[in-house]
Protein backbone atom coordinates (compact mmCIF):
# COMPACT_ATOMS: atom_id res chain seq x y z
CA UNK A 1 0.00 0.00 0.00
CA UNK A 2 1.36 3.38 -1.00
CA UNK A 3 -0.26 6.72 -0.23
CA UNK A 4 0.31 10.12 -1.78
CA UNK A 5 -0.56 12.76 0.80
CA UNK A 6 -1.58 16.14 -0.59
CA UNK A 7 -0.57 18.90 1.84
CA UNK A 8 -2.07 22.37 1.66
CA UNK A 9 -0.35 25.71 1.63
CA UNK A 10 -1.95 29.13 1.73
CA UNK A 11 -0.51 32.59 1.84
CA UNK A 12 2.94 31.56 3.05
CA UNK A 13 1.94 28.81 5.47
CA UNK A 14 1.44 25.05 5.50
CA UNK A 15 -2.09 24.38 6.79
CA UNK A 16 -2.69 22.41 9.99
CA UNK A 17 -4.64 19.70 8.20
CA UNK A 18 -1.28 18.00 7.59
CA UNK A 19 -1.75 16.31 10.99
CA UNK A 20 -4.79 14.48 9.62
CA UNK A 21 -2.89 13.32 6.54
CA UNK A 22 -0.05 11.93 8.65
CA UNK A 23 -2.46 10.39 11.15
CA UNK A 24 -4.19 8.65 8.27
CA UNK A 25 -0.87 7.42 6.83
CA UNK A 26 0.05 6.00 10.23
CA UNK A 27 -3.33 4.27 10.40
CA UNK A 28 -3.17 2.57 6.99
CA UNK A 29 0.55 1.79 7.18
CA UNK A 30 2.70 1.15 4.12
CA UNK A 31 4.75 3.72 2.24
CA UNK A 32 3.85 7.33 1.77
CA UNK A 33 5.11 10.39 -0.04
CA UNK A 34 3.83 13.94 0.05
CA UNK A 35 2.93 16.58 -2.51
CA UNK A 36 2.48 20.30 -1.99
CA UNK A 37 2.22 23.42 -4.09
CA UNK A 38 4.04 25.74 -1.71
CA UNK A 39 7.40 27.21 -0.93
CA UNK A 40 10.80 26.05 0.26
CA UNK A 41 10.56 28.78 2.89
CA UNK A 42 7.71 26.90 4.60
CA UNK A 43 8.18 23.16 4.39
CA UNK A 44 5.76 20.81 6.10
CA UNK A 45 6.95 18.94 9.22
CA UNK A 46 7.41 15.60 7.51
CA UNK A 47 10.05 12.92 7.35
CA UNK A 48 9.97 11.52 3.86
CA UNK A 49 9.93 12.56 0.25
CA UNK A 50 8.09 15.77 -0.59
CA UNK A 51 7.27 16.67 -4.17
CA UNK A 52 7.26 20.45 -4.06
CA UNK A 53 5.87 22.70 -6.76
CA UNK A 54 6.51 26.42 -6.40
CA UNK A 55 3.32 28.30 -5.52
CA UNK A 56 4.72 31.54 -6.93
CA UNK A 57 5.14 29.90 -10.32
CA UNK A 58 2.09 27.62 -10.32
CA UNK A 59 -0.43 29.74 -8.41
CA UNK A 60 -2.12 28.98 -5.11
CA UNK A 61 -5.50 28.26 -6.67
CA UNK A 62 -5.10 27.12 -10.24
CA UNK A 63 -6.85 23.76 -10.11
CA UNK A 64 -6.06 22.80 -13.70
CA UNK A 65 -2.34 23.38 -13.14
CA UNK A 66 -2.33 21.65 -9.73
CA UNK A 67 -4.12 18.71 -11.30
CA UNK A 68 -1.42 18.37 -13.97
CA UNK A 69 1.33 18.58 -11.34
CA UNK A 70 -0.34 15.89 -9.26
CA UNK A 71 -0.88 13.63 -12.25
CA UNK A 72 2.83 13.89 -13.06
CA UNK A 73 3.75 12.85 -9.50
CA UNK A 74 1.15 10.05 -9.54
CA UNK A 75 2.56 8.75 -12.81
CA UNK A 76 5.96 8.51 -11.16
CA UNK A 77 4.95 7.16 -7.75
CA UNK A 78 2.00 4.93 -8.72
CA UNK A 79 0.20 5.32 -5.35
CA UNK A 80 -2.77 3.19 -4.35
CA UNK A 81 -4.31 6.07 -2.44
CA UNK A 82 -4.26 9.79 -3.16
CA UNK A 83 -5.23 11.52 0.06
CA UNK A 84 -6.59 15.07 0.41
CA UNK A 85 -8.18 16.96 3.26
CA UNK A 86 -11.94 17.42 2.94
CA UNK A 87 -11.49 21.16 2.56
CA UNK A 88 -12.03 23.91 0.03
CA UNK A 89 -8.78 22.80 -1.65
CA UNK A 90 -9.45 19.07 -1.47
CA UNK A 91 -13.03 19.07 -2.64
CA UNK A 92 -12.09 21.21 -5.63
CA UNK A 93 -9.02 19.28 -6.69
CA UNK A 94 -9.78 15.68 -5.71
CA UNK A 95 -12.62 15.09 -8.23
CA UNK A 96 -10.49 16.46 -11.06
CA UNK A 97 -7.67 14.05 -10.25
CA UNK A 98 -9.97 11.09 -9.65
CA UNK A 99 -11.84 11.69 -12.89
CA UNK A 100 -8.69 11.57 -15.01
CA UNK A 101 -7.01 8.81 -13.03
CA UNK A 102 -9.88 6.32 -13.21
CA UNK A 103 -9.91 6.05 -9.40
CA UNK A 104 -13.01 6.12 -7.23
CA UNK A 105 -13.26 9.19 -5.04
CA UNK A 106 -14.58 8.74 -1.53
CA UNK A 107 -15.34 12.04 0.20
CA UNK A 108 -15.28 13.03 3.85
CA UNK A 109 -13.69 9.88 5.20
CA UNK A 110 -14.08 9.67 8.99
CA UNK A 111 -12.76 6.16 9.54
CA UNK A 112 -10.86 3.45 7.66
CA UNK A 113 -11.57 -0.11 8.68
CA UNK A 114 -10.16 -3.19 6.92
CA UNK A 115 -9.02 -1.06 3.97
CA UNK A 116 -12.55 0.28 3.63
CA UNK A 117 -13.38 3.97 3.94
CA UNK A 118 -16.26 4.98 6.19
CA UNK A 119 -18.15 8.21 5.52
CA UNK A 120 -21.08 10.03 7.13
CA UNK A 121 -24.56 10.26 5.63
CA UNK A 122 -27.31 12.78 6.46
CA UNK A 123 -25.40 15.10 8.79
CA UNK A 124 -23.61 12.16 10.42
CA UNK A 125 -26.86 10.57 11.55
CA UNK A 126 -25.86 7.47 9.56
CA UNK A 127 -22.60 6.01 8.34
CA UNK A 128 -21.72 4.33 5.09
CA UNK A 129 -18.90 1.96 4.20
CA UNK A 130 -17.73 2.16 0.62
CA UNK A 131 -16.48 -0.69 -1.53
CA UNK A 132 -13.90 0.64 -3.99
CA UNK A 133 -13.96 -1.15 -7.33
CA UNK A 134 -11.14 0.74 -9.06
CA UNK A 135 -7.49 -0.17 -8.66
CA UNK A 136 -6.85 2.80 -6.42
CA UNK A 137 -8.81 5.49 -4.64
CA UNK A 138 -8.82 9.22 -4.04
CA UNK A 139 -9.90 10.08 -0.50
CA UNK A 140 -10.75 13.34 1.25
CA UNK A 141 -10.40 13.21 5.04
CA UNK A 142 -12.77 14.88 7.45
CA UNK A 143 -10.95 17.42 9.62
CA UNK A 144 -9.89 15.92 12.92
CA UNK A 145 -10.86 12.35 12.08
CA UNK A 146 -7.28 11.05 11.91
CA UNK A 147 -5.35 13.47 14.07
CA UNK A 148 -1.99 12.67 15.61
CA UNK A 149 -1.53 12.59 19.36
CA UNK A 150 1.60 14.73 19.01
CA UNK A 151 2.35 17.50 16.51
CA UNK A 152 4.24 16.21 13.45
CA UNK A 153 7.94 16.97 13.12
CA UNK A 154 10.90 16.37 10.84
CA UNK A 155 12.22 17.75 7.58
CA UNK A 156 11.33 16.33 4.19
CA UNK A 157 13.70 15.48 1.38
CA UNK A 158 12.48 17.80 -1.32
CA UNK A 159 12.11 16.86 -4.96
CA UNK A 160 10.95 19.75 -7.08
CA UNK A 161 8.27 19.41 -9.74
CA UNK A 162 7.20 21.93 -12.30
CA UNK A 163 5.14 22.15 -15.44
CA UNK A 164 4.22 24.81 -17.94
CA UNK A 165 0.49 24.76 -17.54
CA UNK A 166 -2.30 27.19 -18.27
CA UNK A 167 -5.60 27.41 -16.44
CA UNK A 168 -8.99 28.82 -17.19
CA UNK A 169 -9.44 29.85 -13.57
CA UNK A 170 -7.63 33.08 -12.76
CA UNK A 171 -6.71 33.64 -9.10
CA UNK A 172 -7.16 37.29 -8.11
CA UNK A 173 -6.21 37.17 -4.44
CA UNK A 174 -7.45 36.51 -0.93
CA UNK A 175 -9.98 38.39 1.06
CA UNK A 176 -9.31 38.26 4.80
CA UNK A 177 -11.95 37.14 7.27
CA UNK A 178 -14.25 39.97 8.25
CA UNK A 179 -12.47 41.81 11.01
CA UNK A 180 -14.64 41.73 14.09
CA UNK A 181 -14.20 42.54 17.73
CA UNK A 182 -15.00 39.04 18.92
CA UNK A 183 -12.15 36.59 19.37
CA UNK A 184 -13.93 33.48 20.58
CA UNK A 185 -10.66 31.58 20.77
CA UNK A 186 -9.88 33.49 23.99
CA UNK A 187 -13.28 33.06 25.66
CA UNK A 188 -13.41 30.65 28.63
CA UNK A 189 -17.13 30.14 28.27
CA UNK A 190 -19.00 30.06 24.97
CA UNK A 191 -22.76 29.63 24.61
CA UNK A 192 -23.64 28.92 20.98
CA UNK A 193 -26.89 29.22 19.09
CA UNK A 194 -27.92 26.75 16.41
CA UNK A 195 -30.78 26.58 13.95
CA UNK A 196 -32.90 25.17 16.78
CA UNK A 197 -33.24 28.62 18.35
CA UNK A 198 -35.95 29.05 15.71
CA UNK A 199 -35.87 32.81 15.16
CA UNK A 200 -33.58 35.83 15.31
CA UNK A 201 -35.10 37.24 18.49
CA UNK A 202 -33.99 34.17 20.43
CA UNK A 203 -30.35 35.17 20.03
CA UNK A 204 -30.94 37.39 23.06
CA UNK A 205 -31.63 34.28 25.18
CA UNK A 206 -28.28 32.86 24.15
CA UNK A 207 -26.51 36.17 24.77
CA UNK A 208 -28.13 36.39 28.22
CA UNK A 209 -26.96 32.91 29.16
CA UNK A 210 -23.44 33.69 27.94
CA UNK A 211 -23.41 36.82 30.07
CA UNK A 212 -24.73 35.00 33.13
CA UNK A 213 -21.89 32.47 32.76
CA UNK A 214 -19.30 35.21 32.19
CA UNK A 215 -18.61 34.31 28.58
CA UNK A 216 -19.34 35.13 24.95
CA UNK A 217 -21.98 33.82 22.62
CA UNK A 218 -21.27 32.05 19.36
CA UNK A 219 -23.34 30.60 16.54
CA UNK A 220 -23.45 27.78 14.05
CA UNK A 221 -23.37 28.36 10.33
CA UNK A 222 -27.14 28.37 9.61
CA UNK A 223 -27.61 31.07 12.24
CA UNK A 224 -24.92 33.23 10.63
CA UNK A 225 -26.24 32.57 7.10
CA UNK A 226 -29.69 33.66 8.30
CA UNK A 227 -28.03 36.85 9.57
CA UNK A 228 -29.23 36.21 13.12
CA UNK A 229 -25.59 36.57 14.28
CA UNK A 230 -22.45 38.16 12.81
CA UNK A 231 -19.86 36.05 11.02
CA UNK A 232 -17.20 36.72 13.64
CA UNK A 233 -19.28 34.67 16.08
CA UNK A 234 -19.38 31.58 13.86
CA UNK A 235 -17.85 28.41 15.30
CA UNK A 236 -16.81 25.64 12.93
CA UNK A 237 -14.55 24.87 9.99
CA UNK A 238 -15.54 28.03 8.12
CA UNK A 239 -15.64 30.08 11.31
CA UNK A 240 -13.52 29.99 14.45
CA UNK A 241 -11.99 26.98 16.16
CA UNK A 242 -12.50 27.24 19.89
CA UNK A 243 -11.49 25.35 23.04
CA UNK A 244 -13.16 27.03 26.05
CA UNK A 245 -13.52 25.56 29.54
CA UNK A 246 -17.27 25.34 29.00
CA UNK A 247 -19.18 25.17 25.73
CA UNK A 248 -22.96 25.25 25.81
CA UNK A 249 -24.53 24.22 22.48
CA UNK A 250 -28.12 25.43 22.25
CA UNK A 251 -30.28 24.01 19.48
CA UNK A 252 -27.23 22.74 17.60
CA UNK A 253 -27.73 19.34 15.98
CA UNK A 254 -24.00 18.74 15.57
CA UNK A 255 -23.10 18.89 11.87
CA UNK A 256 -19.53 17.66 11.43
CA UNK A 257 -18.31 21.10 10.37
CA UNK A 258 -19.52 22.55 13.66
CA UNK A 259 -18.12 19.71 15.77
CA UNK A 260 -14.71 20.18 14.15
CA UNK A 261 -14.67 23.73 15.52
CA UNK A 262 -15.65 23.04 19.12
CA UNK A 263 -15.01 19.46 20.15
CA UNK A 264 -11.77 20.36 21.94
CA UNK A 265 -13.76 22.30 24.54
CA UNK A 266 -13.02 21.03 28.08
CA UNK A 267 -16.66 20.50 29.02
CA UNK A 268 -19.63 20.47 26.67
CA UNK A 269 -23.28 20.87 27.57
CA UNK A 270 -25.87 20.48 24.81
CA UNK A 271 -29.46 21.63 25.04
CA UNK A 272 -31.57 19.99 22.37
CA UNK A 273 -35.08 18.59 21.94
CA UNK A 274 -33.69 15.61 19.97
CA UNK A 275 -31.95 13.12 22.22
CA UNK A 276 -30.47 11.40 19.14
CA UNK A 277 -28.84 14.56 17.76
CA UNK A 278 -25.16 13.95 16.84
CA UNK A 279 -24.12 16.72 19.27
CA UNK A 280 -24.87 14.11 21.95
CA UNK A 281 -21.77 12.19 20.81
CA UNK A 282 -19.41 14.93 21.93
CA UNK A 283 -21.44 16.41 24.79
CA UNK A 284 -20.61 15.59 28.40
CA UNK A 285 -24.18 16.46 29.29
CA UNK A 286 -27.19 16.50 26.99
CA UNK A 287 -30.23 18.27 28.42
CA UNK A 288 -33.23 17.09 26.40
CA UNK A 289 -35.33 20.23 26.52
CA UNK A 290 -36.86 23.12 24.62
CA UNK A 291 -34.20 25.80 24.95
CA UNK A 292 -36.76 28.62 24.85
CA UNK A 293 -38.20 27.26 28.10
CA UNK A 294 -35.00 26.09 29.79
CA UNK A 295 -32.60 28.95 29.02
CA UNK A 296 -34.63 31.77 30.66
CA UNK A 297 -34.95 29.72 33.87
CA UNK A 298 -31.26 28.91 33.78
CA UNK A 299 -30.36 32.58 33.34
CA UNK A 300 -32.64 33.60 36.20
CA UNK A 301 -31.16 31.04 38.56
CA UNK A 302 -27.59 31.92 37.59
CA UNK A 303 -28.22 35.63 38.08
CA UNK A 304 -29.84 34.97 41.48
CA UNK A 305 -26.70 33.31 42.81
Amino acid at each position, binding site marked *: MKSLLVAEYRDGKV*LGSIGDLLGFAARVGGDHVMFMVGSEAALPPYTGKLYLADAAAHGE*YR*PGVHKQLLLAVIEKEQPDLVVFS*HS*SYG*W*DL*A*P*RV*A*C*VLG*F*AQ*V*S*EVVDYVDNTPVVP*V*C*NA*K*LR*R*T*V*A*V*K*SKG*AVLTLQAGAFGLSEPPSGSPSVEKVQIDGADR*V*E*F*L*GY*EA*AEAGGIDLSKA*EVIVSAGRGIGKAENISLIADLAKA*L*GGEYGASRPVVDSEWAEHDRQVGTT*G*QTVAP*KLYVACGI*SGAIQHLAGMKKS*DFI*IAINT*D*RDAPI*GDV*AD*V*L*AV*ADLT*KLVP*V*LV*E*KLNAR
Partner: protein
Amino acid sequence: MKILVCIKQVPDMESKFKVAADGRWYDTADLAWRLNEYDEYAVEQAVLVKEQGGDTDITVLSIGPDKVKEAIKKALAMGCDRGVQVVDNEVSQREPLEIAGIISRFAKDKGFDLILTGMQSQDRGSAQVGILVAEMLDMAGVSTVVGFSLAGAKLELKRELEGGVKARVAVTLPAVVTCQLGLNTPRYPTLPNIMKAKKKELLSLPVSDLLQAEPRQQTAKVYFPEKKGGGLILEGEPAELADRLIQIIKEKTAVLA
Protein backbone atom coordinates in the same frame (compact mmCIF):
# COMPACT_ATOMS: atom_id res chain seq x y z
CA MET B 1 -27.43 32.92 -22.26
CA LYS B 2 -28.31 29.29 -21.62
CA ILE B 3 -28.14 28.14 -18.02
CA LEU B 4 -28.46 24.62 -16.62
CA VAL B 5 -29.21 24.19 -12.93
CA CYS B 6 -28.72 20.71 -11.47
CA ILE B 7 -30.74 19.97 -8.37
CA LYS B 8 -31.38 17.07 -6.03
CA GLN B 9 -34.28 16.20 -3.80
CA VAL B 10 -33.25 15.18 -0.28
CA PRO B 11 -35.05 14.28 2.94
CA ASP B 12 -35.46 16.86 5.66
CA MET B 13 -32.34 16.34 7.76
CA GLU B 14 -34.36 16.55 10.98
CA SER B 15 -36.12 13.30 10.00
CA LYS B 16 -35.87 10.10 11.99
CA PHE B 17 -33.91 7.97 9.57
CA LYS B 18 -34.16 4.20 9.23
CA VAL B 19 -31.77 1.93 7.36
CA ALA B 20 -33.33 0.44 4.20
CA ALA B 21 -34.07 -3.29 4.06
CA ASP B 22 -31.09 -3.96 1.76
CA GLY B 23 -28.78 -2.19 4.24
CA ARG B 24 -27.33 0.05 1.54
CA TRP B 25 -29.16 3.35 1.99
CA TYR B 26 -31.74 4.95 4.24
CA ASP B 27 -35.36 3.88 4.00
CA THR B 28 -37.05 6.44 1.74
CA ALA B 29 -40.60 5.77 3.02
CA ASP B 30 -42.30 8.21 5.40
CA LEU B 31 -39.80 11.01 4.92
CA ALA B 32 -40.53 14.65 4.17
CA TRP B 33 -38.62 15.65 1.01
CA ARG B 34 -37.29 19.01 0.01
CA LEU B 35 -35.01 20.71 -2.46
CA ASN B 36 -31.38 20.24 -1.37
CA GLU B 37 -30.52 23.43 0.50
CA TYR B 38 -27.30 24.10 -1.43
CA ASP B 39 -29.20 23.74 -4.72
CA GLU B 40 -31.66 26.45 -3.68
CA TYR B 41 -28.76 28.89 -3.88
CA ALA B 42 -27.95 27.59 -7.38
CA VAL B 43 -31.55 28.07 -8.54
CA GLU B 44 -31.66 31.56 -7.04
CA GLN B 45 -28.36 32.51 -8.69
CA ALA B 46 -29.65 31.41 -12.11
CA VAL B 47 -32.81 33.48 -11.64
CA LEU B 48 -30.73 36.49 -10.52
CA VAL B 49 -28.69 36.20 -13.75
CA LYS B 50 -31.93 36.12 -15.75
CA GLU B 51 -33.11 39.22 -13.91
CA GLN B 52 -29.93 41.04 -14.97
CA GLY B 53 -31.59 41.21 -18.38
CA GLY B 54 -30.65 39.81 -21.74
CA ASP B 55 -32.05 36.71 -23.37
CA THR B 56 -31.63 34.07 -20.69
CA ASP B 57 -33.13 30.60 -20.64
CA ILE B 58 -32.87 28.37 -17.55
CA THR B 59 -33.24 24.59 -17.64
CA VAL B 60 -33.47 22.81 -14.30
CA LEU B 61 -32.56 19.12 -14.19
CA SER B 62 -33.04 16.50 -11.52
CA ILE B 63 -32.39 12.77 -11.54
CA GLY B 64 -34.66 10.38 -9.69
CA PRO B 65 -38.10 8.84 -9.32
CA ASP B 66 -41.32 10.75 -10.03
CA LYS B 67 -41.33 12.53 -6.71
CA VAL B 68 -38.33 14.64 -7.80
CA LYS B 69 -40.82 16.52 -9.99
CA GLU B 70 -41.81 18.36 -6.82
CA ALA B 71 -38.31 19.76 -6.46
CA ILE B 72 -38.27 20.64 -10.17
CA LYS B 73 -41.63 22.42 -9.81
CA LYS B 74 -40.30 24.46 -6.92
CA ALA B 75 -37.36 25.56 -9.07
CA LEU B 76 -39.77 26.41 -11.91
CA ALA B 77 -41.86 28.44 -9.47
CA MET B 78 -38.71 30.27 -8.36
CA GLY B 79 -38.14 31.31 -11.98
CA CYS B 80 -36.52 28.55 -14.04
CA ASP B 81 -38.00 28.21 -17.54
CA ARG B 82 -38.16 24.47 -18.20
CA GLY B 83 -37.65 21.28 -16.25
CA VAL B 84 -36.05 17.95 -17.07
CA GLN B 85 -36.52 14.82 -14.98
CA VAL B 86 -34.10 12.02 -15.72
CA VAL B 87 -36.24 9.11 -14.59
CA ASP B 88 -34.13 6.85 -12.40
CA ASN B 89 -35.49 4.71 -9.59
CA GLU B 90 -31.97 3.53 -8.71
CA VAL B 91 -30.56 7.01 -8.22
CA SER B 92 -29.67 6.53 -4.56
CA GLN B 93 -27.20 3.78 -5.46
CA ARG B 94 -25.45 5.78 -8.16
CA GLU B 95 -22.06 7.14 -7.32
CA PRO B 96 -21.13 10.79 -8.08
CA LEU B 97 -19.26 9.79 -11.24
CA GLU B 98 -22.41 8.18 -12.69
CA ILE B 99 -24.55 11.20 -11.73
CA ALA B 100 -22.03 13.58 -13.33
CA GLY B 101 -21.92 11.31 -16.38
CA ILE B 102 -25.71 11.55 -16.79
CA ILE B 103 -25.65 15.33 -16.46
CA SER B 104 -22.77 15.81 -18.85
CA ARG B 105 -24.31 13.49 -21.45
CA PHE B 106 -27.50 15.57 -21.22
CA ALA B 107 -25.63 18.89 -21.41
CA LYS B 108 -23.22 17.94 -24.18
CA ASP B 109 -23.92 19.79 -27.44
CA LYS B 110 -26.71 21.89 -25.87
CA GLY B 111 -24.47 24.92 -25.59
CA PHE B 112 -24.98 25.82 -21.94
CA ASP B 113 -22.96 28.90 -21.02
CA LEU B 114 -23.32 28.39 -17.29
CA ILE B 115 -24.02 25.28 -15.22
CA LEU B 116 -24.94 25.85 -11.59
CA THR B 117 -25.35 23.33 -8.79
CA GLY B 118 -25.06 23.12 -5.04
CA MET B 119 -21.57 22.40 -3.69
CA GLN B 120 -22.87 19.18 -2.16
CA SER B 121 -26.04 17.34 -1.27
CA GLN B 122 -27.27 17.29 2.30
CA ASP B 123 -27.68 13.52 2.43
CA ARG B 124 -24.67 12.08 0.61
CA GLY B 125 -22.41 15.11 0.86
CA SER B 126 -19.76 13.95 -1.61
CA ALA B 127 -19.17 17.45 -3.08
CA GLN B 128 -17.99 15.90 -6.33
CA VAL B 129 -20.71 16.17 -8.96
CA GLY B 130 -20.28 19.79 -10.08
CA ILE B 131 -16.53 19.59 -10.55
CA LEU B 132 -16.85 16.20 -12.28
CA VAL B 133 -19.34 17.73 -14.74
CA ALA B 134 -16.82 20.50 -15.47
CA GLU B 135 -14.11 17.90 -16.08
CA MET B 136 -16.31 15.76 -18.30
CA LEU B 137 -17.48 18.71 -20.40
CA ASP B 138 -14.01 20.27 -20.42
CA MET B 139 -15.34 23.50 -18.92
CA ALA B 140 -13.89 25.78 -16.24
CA GLY B 141 -15.14 24.71 -12.82
CA VAL B 142 -15.20 26.71 -9.59
CA SER B 143 -16.46 25.21 -6.33
CA THR B 144 -17.78 26.54 -3.01
CA VAL B 145 -18.83 29.92 -4.32
CA VAL B 146 -20.21 32.60 -1.97
CA GLY B 147 -19.81 35.64 -4.23
CA PHE B 148 -21.01 35.90 -7.85
CA SER B 149 -20.72 38.74 -10.33
CA LEU B 150 -21.29 38.36 -14.06
CA ALA B 151 -20.37 41.01 -16.61
CA GLY B 152 -20.63 39.93 -20.25
CA ALA B 153 -18.93 36.55 -20.48
CA LYS B 154 -16.66 37.26 -17.51
CA LEU B 155 -17.49 35.82 -14.14
CA GLU B 156 -15.90 37.05 -10.91
CA LEU B 157 -16.41 34.71 -8.03
CA LYS B 158 -15.53 34.38 -4.38
CA ARG B 159 -14.73 30.93 -3.07
CA GLU B 160 -15.18 30.25 0.61
CA LEU B 161 -12.04 28.87 2.24
CA GLU B 162 -11.59 27.80 5.85
CA GLY B 163 -11.51 30.28 8.71
CA GLY B 164 -13.63 32.95 7.00
CA VAL B 165 -11.03 33.64 4.28
CA LYS B 166 -12.24 33.94 0.70
CA ALA B 167 -10.39 33.52 -2.58
CA ARG B 168 -11.32 35.82 -5.45
CA VAL B 169 -11.17 34.18 -8.87
CA ALA B 170 -12.26 34.98 -12.41
CA VAL B 171 -13.32 32.75 -15.29
CA THR B 172 -14.67 33.29 -18.75
CA LEU B 173 -17.86 31.44 -19.68
CA PRO B 174 -18.69 28.65 -20.25
CA ALA B 175 -18.24 27.53 -16.66
CA VAL B 176 -19.58 25.27 -13.95
CA VAL B 177 -20.10 26.89 -10.55
CA THR B 178 -20.98 25.05 -7.33
CA CYS B 179 -22.84 27.14 -4.77
CA GLN B 180 -22.12 27.33 -1.06
CA LEU B 181 -24.64 28.38 1.58
CA GLY B 182 -24.93 32.13 1.98
CA LEU B 183 -24.29 32.97 -1.72
CA ASN B 184 -27.61 34.79 -1.98
CA THR B 185 -31.05 34.72 -0.36
CA PRO B 186 -33.21 32.09 -2.08
CA ARG B 187 -36.71 33.41 -2.74
CA TYR B 188 -39.95 31.79 -1.73
CA PRO B 189 -42.12 31.02 -4.74
CA THR B 190 -45.22 33.24 -4.81
CA LEU B 191 -48.66 31.75 -5.45
CA PRO B 192 -48.95 33.33 -8.94
CA ASN B 193 -45.52 31.93 -9.81
CA ILE B 194 -46.50 28.51 -8.50
CA MET B 195 -49.54 28.64 -10.80
CA LYS B 196 -47.40 29.77 -13.76
CA ALA B 197 -44.92 26.97 -13.09
CA LYS B 198 -47.63 24.38 -13.68
CA LYS B 199 -47.74 25.45 -17.33
CA LYS B 200 -43.99 25.23 -17.87
CA GLU B 201 -42.47 22.38 -19.84
CA LEU B 202 -41.35 19.38 -17.77
CA LEU B 203 -39.68 16.75 -19.89
CA SER B 204 -38.98 13.21 -18.65
CA LEU B 205 -36.08 11.22 -20.06
CA PRO B 206 -35.18 7.61 -19.25
CA VAL B 207 -31.85 7.30 -17.48
CA SER B 208 -30.82 4.51 -19.87
CA ASP B 209 -30.47 7.15 -22.61
CA LEU B 210 -27.91 9.10 -20.61
CA LEU B 211 -26.06 6.72 -18.32
CA GLN B 212 -22.46 6.42 -19.45
CA ALA B 213 -19.92 6.24 -16.63
CA GLU B 214 -19.10 2.86 -15.12
CA PRO B 215 -19.24 2.98 -11.32
CA ARG B 216 -15.90 2.83 -9.54
CA GLN B 217 -17.40 2.39 -6.08
CA GLN B 218 -20.55 1.22 -4.38
CA THR B 219 -22.07 1.50 -0.97
CA ALA B 220 -21.28 -1.64 1.00
CA LYS B 221 -23.34 -0.91 4.08
CA VAL B 222 -25.28 1.88 5.77
CA TYR B 223 -25.66 1.79 9.54
CA PHE B 224 -26.15 3.90 12.63
CA PRO B 225 -22.89 4.98 14.24
CA GLU B 226 -22.32 3.55 17.66
CA LYS B 227 -23.26 6.08 20.27
CA LYS B 228 -20.03 7.02 21.97
CA GLY B 229 -21.94 7.16 25.21
CA GLY B 230 -20.38 8.39 28.41
CA GLY B 231 -22.40 11.56 28.20
CA LEU B 232 -25.08 12.15 30.79
CA ILE B 233 -28.61 12.63 29.46
CA LEU B 234 -30.88 14.84 31.54
CA GLU B 235 -34.62 15.19 31.20
CA GLY B 236 -37.21 16.96 33.30
CA GLU B 237 -38.93 20.24 34.03
CA PRO B 238 -36.99 23.44 33.25
CA ALA B 239 -36.52 24.49 36.90
CA GLU B 240 -35.22 21.08 37.93
CA LEU B 241 -33.00 20.81 34.83
CA ALA B 242 -31.57 24.28 35.46
CA ASP B 243 -30.64 23.37 39.03
CA ARG B 244 -28.93 20.18 37.91
CA LEU B 245 -27.02 21.96 35.15
CA ILE B 246 -25.78 24.64 37.55
CA GLN B 247 -24.68 21.92 39.98
CA ILE B 248 -22.80 20.11 37.20
CA ILE B 249 -21.15 23.31 35.96
CA LYS B 250 -19.95 23.99 39.52
CA GLU B 251 -18.61 20.48 40.01
CA LYS B 252 -17.03 19.90 36.62
CA THR B 253 -15.77 23.31 35.55
CA ALA B 254 -14.15 26.26 37.22
CA VAL B 255 -16.34 28.85 35.55
CA LEU B 256 -18.75 29.46 38.44
CA ALA B 257 -16.11 29.62 41.16
